[in-house]
Every structure is written in C-alpha cells, then in structure tokens.
C-alpha cells in the first residue's frame, strides 16, 4: 500500500544574492497512515521548511510529493488551500487563534471555508471542543483562556474538518511541562483514533512520545529511528 505522505528527492533552494542555499537537500521521506512522527533538529536544520512543504504551504523547488495519492506539485494555489483545508490540521507554537473570535468561532472557521452547513458546523465544533476538554469554554475569547487552553482550542480547530494529518510546529514550546504532558497525551489519543501526527520540535521530551523520530541537519535526514 502506498504511503500517506511520499516525498522523493525533494530540494528546496533559496536564491540569495546570487548564491543558492539548500534548505532541503535531496530529501526522501515516507510516512504511513496512523503513525506518530517527531521531526527533530536545531534551528536552521530545515525542519520548518520540511513542515511547510508537508503542510502544503510551500512547494519544493524539485522532487515529487504525493499526499494521499494527490500530486502536490501539480496543484494550483487554490487547490493547495483545499488540500490544507480538508486533509491537514495545523497546530502552531503561538496557537495562532484569531483574537477577535470566540473559541467556537475559531473552531468553526475551517468549516466555513469548507462550506459546511451552519448547524453541522456548530455541532461539530462543540463536539471537538468537548473532545479536547473545553466543553465549558465555548464562548471565551483567546485572551480569556490560559496557554494550555488556547493550545487545545487550536488542536480542536485543527481537527474540525476531520483531517488525516495533524501537523504540530513546536506544540509545547509555549507551555509549562505539565500542560505539555497533557498535550502529548492528547496526541497519543488522536493517533489511536487513526490520525497521523507529525510533530516538529527541538525538544527531546516532546519527541520521546512519538513512535518514530526523524533527525535532520543541514537540510538532510541524518537519523530515522522507529521506537519500540
């Protein structure tokens, strides 16, 4: 069976003052459905670039990328937006919630862009917010919630359109260790429901929860370990 994510010979080159900088160098990586992968590396190792490409926010300079059977390099900007909307849920380090909206409005936003009918949108938003333990905070704005709660709203938003991949960029970077632990347990639970979770981090404790750790340096994969 083909992998969910299949990256082959990916190069991502930035032209800077006549020099070519390789953020990703001839990178090949496959990730199967239902895996829990941590991508590790120091800053400048190319892990963020890799996350942007996997998340369809950026296109590789060369190589091929097939996501759930879709050839990403052939997609227009709007088609990429559709792929992000339907298949990928993002969890950002700074949560990136819209400050003027309540928790439930934030969670309903991806469904607005997907064209989900209003009632269904509302029901589904309540359901995912309950799933992350925020059933009693539906109408709070981000500034009325703690960091851990904001993180959970952003996870709920990522899950709203039932994506196959949850892509988390330094999900524990802004949280205390206790809340970080809770988030990791939540990710474990999602994986057990069949969602593929990819965590980009430089933190070993965070990475230890994953079942597979991919280490990067200078745009290349230097280590790929499946934990027992």
């Amino acid at each position: 069976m083909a992998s969910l994510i299949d990256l082959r010979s990916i190069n991502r080159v930035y032209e800077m003052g006549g020099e070519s900088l390789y953020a990703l160098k001839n990178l090949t990586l496959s990730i199967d459905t239902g895996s829990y992968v941590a991508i590790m590396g120091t800053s400048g190792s190319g892990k963020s670039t890799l996350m942007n490409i996997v998340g369809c926010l950026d296109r590789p300079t060369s190589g091929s990328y097939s996501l759930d059977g879709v050839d990403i390099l052939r997609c227009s900007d709007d088609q990429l937006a559709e792929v992000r909307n339907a298949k990928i849920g993002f969890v950002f380090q700074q949560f990136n919630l819209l400050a003027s909206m309540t928790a439930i409005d934030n969670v309903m936003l991806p469904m607005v862009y997907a064209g989900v009918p209003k009632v269904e949108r509302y029901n589904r938003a309540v359901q995912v917010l309950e799933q992350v333990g925020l059933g009693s905070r539906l109408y709070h704005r981000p500034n009325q919630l703690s960091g851990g709660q904001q993180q959970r709203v952003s996870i709920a938003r990522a899950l709203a359109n039932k994506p196959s991949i949850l892509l988390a960029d330094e999900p524990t970077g802004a949280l205390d260790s206790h809340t970080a632990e809770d988030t990791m347990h939540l990710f474990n639970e999602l994986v057990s429901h069949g969602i593929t979770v990819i965590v980009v981090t430089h933190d070993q404790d965070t990475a230890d929860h994953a079942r597979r750790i991919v280490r990067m340096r200078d745009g290349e994969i230097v280590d790929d370990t499946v934990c027992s």
Partner: protein
Amino acid sequence: MGLAELFLIAWQGILSNRLRSSLTVLGIVIGIASVITLMGIGEGAKLEAEKQVQALGVNLIYIRPGSIGTSGVSMGQGTAPTLTYEDVLAIKENCPAAEDVAAQYTSSLQIQAGEKNTLTTVVGTDPSFPDIRNFHTAQGRFFTVQEANDSARVCVVGDGVVEDVFSGASAVGKKLLIRGELFTVVGVMEHKGANATGDQDDQVFIPIQTGYSTLFGLNLVSGRAVKSILVQAKAGEDLQAQFQITNLLRLRHNIQSPDGDDFTIRTQMDILQTAQSITGVFALLLGATASISLLVGGIGIMNMMLVSVTERTREIGIRKAIGAKYRDILMQFVFEAIVLSLTGGIFGILLGLGSAYWVGSLGQWTTVVTPSSVVLSFLVSLAIGLFFGIYPARKAALLDPIVALRSE
C-alpha cells in the same frame, strides 16, 4: 460562503477598530451628504426657473423687433422699430392658430398721485393681456375693449406702485398723473414678483391706443411701433402658430430669405430650454464640486484598507493556512470596504436630506431632493467601496501564507 457570512466577517473586521472605521465612514458621509444637498439645490434652481417660465402664461409666443446692423455689427435686439400695431391686427385677423394677441409698448415715465411721485414703467397693451400673461387684477378690473377703442384715460397699477404713490391705501377710483396726463385707476394687479425682465409689480398698464394718442408720441403718420407682441397659441398648436406668424410677418415685411428676418420669435418652449440649459450647467457644477469630496472619501477608504491589510497580515496567513482560497480573502476585504462605504452612504443620504431641508428652510434657495439622486448616491457609494477596496483586497489575497504567518 454566503453573503450573510461575508457580511458578518466584514462587520467583525470593522468593529475590531471602531474609531478608525468611524472616521473613514465620516469621509463618505460628508461626501454623499454634500452631493445630495448640492444636487438638491441644483434641482431646486431648475424647478424655480421652470416655474417662472410657466408663470409667463400658457402656450405663449413672444415676438420682438429685429436688430439694426450692417455686416455683422448688431445694435442689439429691438433696436429697429420694425413691428407695428398693424402687424398685431394682422396676426389677430389672419393666424387661425393664434388664440389671442396682445401688443406691448413700454416707456419709462414719471407718475404722480397727490404729493408723491416716482419713475415707473408704463405699459401700453390690449385688454387681452391679463389672460395671455396669466397676470390678473387683485382689486377692481382690467380696462375693457370698449375703453381701449375709445382711448379712455384709465389705468391699472401694479401693487408696487400702490405702495410707492398711494402709500398702500386702496387705489381703485383714485386719480393718477402720468407725465402730466390725468388717468383714473380702475384696478390693481396681483403681486407677481420680479422675473428676468425686471420688477413686474412696478408697472402701470394703460390701453395702447390711449398711449399712442397721449404719451408715446406715436401716431398713424409716424407709425405705431410696438416693442413686443404676445401671442397665445391654441392648445397644442404652438408650432402651427409660430409657422403662420413667421410667414405672415415675412409677407408683410417683404422678406425673401429666412436670414433677413427683421423680427425674432420665441416660444415658451425656447425660453424654457434656455433656462434649463443654464440651470443644468449650474447643477452639474454643484454636482462636480461635491464629487471631489466623495473622491477624497474613497481614497480614505483605500488608505484604511491598506493599513488594515498590513496590520492583519498574520490573520490572513492563519486563514490561508486553514484553507481560505484567494477568493475568500479577496471577498472578505472587498466586503469590508463596501460595508464601510455603504454605511457612509446611508448616513450620508440621511444627513444630506436633513441639510437640503435645512437649506430650503432658510428661504434663499429652493431645494428638491429627487429619488433618483438618492438612488444614485447609494449606487455611487457601493461603487466607491468596490473600486477603492479591490486593490487592498487583492494585495491581501495574494499574500504568501508562510510570509504572512511569520509576520508579527
């Protein structure tokens, strides 16, 4: 996304910076309000001019003597005494489309009653004058056909003359000296106000035959000139009347080519058109002035939208990351601009209606706000939002999601 949803998103964006949004809206409010008010003043002037022309009478045709002139140098209309009272009688006799005819000979003369005297315009005319000019007596009566034929020494005075020489007391039956000749006042005209030709209330009307024999120094031998002829055409026959009169006068004056006419003939329609073209230019100028403030308001919207796009780059990045397409972002910001300008438009229309009413109540100007100017203002404010919103919205929609997400 449905319209209601777009409207809601736009509204949230606007509310997120109330002060700035209100100031931007204010620009449009002022622009639309001045358009409504100034167009109201322009329309009012147009209506006022039409009313004045209508007040001249119904189906009126106005004939004046031509000008003296050689090789392109004209001395001005009415300088050649080419129309005579015989022309008036001929028109009455021979033009079936002419309902009624009245000659006019005016002269500026001194009048006196008791110890008071003043200089006024004495008009020699026919008994048909009040009906043709739609200008009637308020007290007493106009002079009769009999009095005209007898060259009776009777006169009818304007209500301004009553003020001047009779100190406002009832004038009917009193004696009035016109350049030393004794006349009896038989009537007082209604108040009419001033028009383009002067104060219509500062006039004394006498039978034209009496004028010829006593005051004007004209007789059958010297030729009984008239200064203008008023013709009331039969209803719906203005053009026939104009045609018949032109041909008759050419025949009587031995004129071969149309260029050599020694008279000018204007219908009420001509006068109306002249008045309309003048007030039309006036209205256009007012409208153009107001449009400038509207343009400035539109630029205000564009400015605010550009600042808003820059400030909300991160929000745009987030929206794009979770699946907003080019069109979604474009519509969000275009809608925001349109909601701003339409809000301004609606308040501007209300303010404009109020201020047009206020200007009208001052009494100097008549203001008329037509429904079409309200609809036009509404559509213009919609167009402003669209026009000035589309550039900032495109800028937002074209943002690279990664760059946008990274911005603070």
